[in-house]
């Protein structure tokens, strides 16, 4: 059995999205900036896509700038605000568990003389609006807090944070890459000034995303050249990709409640099955303020990459919070920020669903994970009670 449970990494593109995109690779090839009918056909497709994205967010089409993905949108928002408002202030507020697209952009600004407050999160991965309020200083120019965390699925109190920022007159950006198309968003009601999204997390194509920029925010261009994308992002548009994003977001929003219900039921069955059948397992993230598709567990005494390899051998695609794979020996910054010990964080697995998954796959995954855990624990020196005389923190080897 082949089971794909890595939908927070990327999703399978929907057939309807593909069909919508196909003509724009061949028949409809005009440059949207051209005045002739070939160009206008492409231009119309961009307009339709822009309207679809705007509708999904409760925004106006003129507030949507297409980008090359979520990371580009995050960079454009954060670096754009910094560039525009640096004379007004040089302080930015974010959280310790943001995606690297946000964290590394903030770190770049720190090197340029900005100060960044990284708000700590509680054991579930939550920050509160009052934490944000207390961190605001006279020179704060931006609050950037993710809508929902990519590793543990915790949904932040975005409306409350938006209200605080609005009351204090500070721009609010949210990286909503994991949230758009999965949970309801209304940028007006929630006082969001800037929002990043990506197509491939909602059954759309890779390499395309969008930045919502509230009217009047007026950030400087992030790519210089032609007049495309309201002069903010120059370069001939990725028409097929943008068409795909438009269709994907329309489909996701149309069935948002139905999909959330289906995924939440499968998610909870997976969580309950793991917690019930495997001893000494911890659920990471919040039990209810959680993305409908996210499961993240730490399995004690065994290591994440080994679990992933074993799952893969059994046809199950998952991901791990252990950064061992990236060459760093530190586990995920998110899990550490939640207060997990290094040992527990090393044994974490993320399983992320989509509406394409089935109950049969969920049950197979629970069973497989149980077998794998037994096998890996049998070879783990941490699990055997006879080796308990060795302290687990003993530094017999230092990296």
């Amino acid at each position, binding site marked *: 059995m082949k089971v794909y449970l890595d939908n927070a990494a990327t999703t399978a593109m929907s057939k309807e999205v593909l069909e919508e995109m196909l003509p724009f690779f061949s028949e409809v090839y005009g440059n949207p900036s051209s005045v002739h009918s070939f160009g206008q056909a492409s231009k119309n497709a961009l307009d339709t896509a822009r309207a679809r994205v705007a509708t999904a967010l409760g925004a106006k089409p003129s507030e949507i700038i297409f980008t090359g993905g979520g990371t580009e949108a995050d960079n454009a928002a954060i670096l754009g605000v910094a560039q525009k408002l640096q004379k007004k202030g040089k302080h930015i507020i974010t959280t310790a568990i943001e995606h690297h697209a946000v964290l590394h952009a903030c770190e770049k600004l720190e090197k340029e003389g900005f100060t960044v407050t990284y708000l700590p999160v509680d054991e579930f991965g939550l920050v509160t609006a009052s934490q944000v309020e207390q961190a605001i200083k006279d020179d704060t120019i931006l609050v950037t807090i993710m809508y929902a965390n990519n590793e543990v699925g915790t949904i932040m109190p975005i409306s409350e944070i938006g209200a605080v920022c609005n009351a204090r007159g500070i721009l609010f950006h949210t990286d909503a890459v994991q949230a758009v198309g999965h949970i309801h968003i209304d940028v007006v009601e929630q006082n969001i000034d800037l929002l990043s999204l990506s197509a491939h997390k909602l059954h759309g194509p890779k390499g395309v995303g969008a930045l919502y920029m509230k009217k009047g925010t007026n950030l400087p261009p992030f790519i210089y050249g032609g007049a495309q994308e309201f002069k903010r992002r120059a370069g001939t548009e990725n028409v097929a990709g943008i068409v795909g994003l438009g269709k994907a977001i329309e489909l996701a929003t149309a069935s948002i409640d139905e999909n959330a219900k289906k995924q939440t039921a499968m998610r909870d069955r997976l969580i309950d099955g793991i917690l019930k059948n495997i001893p000494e397992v911890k659920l990471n993230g919040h039990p209810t303020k959680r993305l409908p598709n996210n499961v993240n567990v730490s399995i004690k*005494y*065994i*290591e*994440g*990459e*080994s679990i992933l*390899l074993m799952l893969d*051998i059994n046809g199950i695609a998952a991901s791990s919070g*252990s950064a*061992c*794979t*990236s*060459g760093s*020996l530190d*586990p995920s910054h998110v899990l550490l920020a939640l207060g997990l010990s*290094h*040992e527990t964080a*090393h044994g974490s697995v993320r399983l992320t669903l989509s509406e394409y998954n089935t109950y049969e796959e969920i049950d197979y995954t629970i069973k497989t994970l149980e077998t794998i855990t037994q096998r890996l624990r*049998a*070879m*783990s*020196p*941490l699990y*055997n009670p*006879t*080796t308990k005389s*060795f302290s*687990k*923190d*003993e*530094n*017999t*080897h230092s*990296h």
Partner: protein
Amino acid sequence: MSYSKKVLDHFQCPRNVGELEDANGIGMVGNAKCGDIMQMFIKVNDDGIIEDVSFKTFGCGAAVATSSMATEMIKGKTIDEALKLTNSAVVEALEGLPPAKVHCSVLAEEAVKLAIEDYKKKKEEL
């Protein structure tokens, strides 16, 4: 990042896993904080030959595979021969490791050396 067939083979079907009940040398390296712990058990006979060997490992695929390979490479060898085992020999036998995983082979080499040290120490005490 991808592993060689040999690494995956040793990960999937690790050789000499478990605890050796009559081991007369035990070596343990690494720590859970870094995400790797290796424990090596050896049984050395009166002729100084490693008659039996086993391991237990907490760690990634490469950690399991290097432990497994190291046990195969020292089984039946004299302790002097086993002390000559280098991490690069383990890497070579596994048909390579991704650069970020080479430290696992260092752990395997260290675990073997510590087990032999432990054996020698115990022998002196007798």
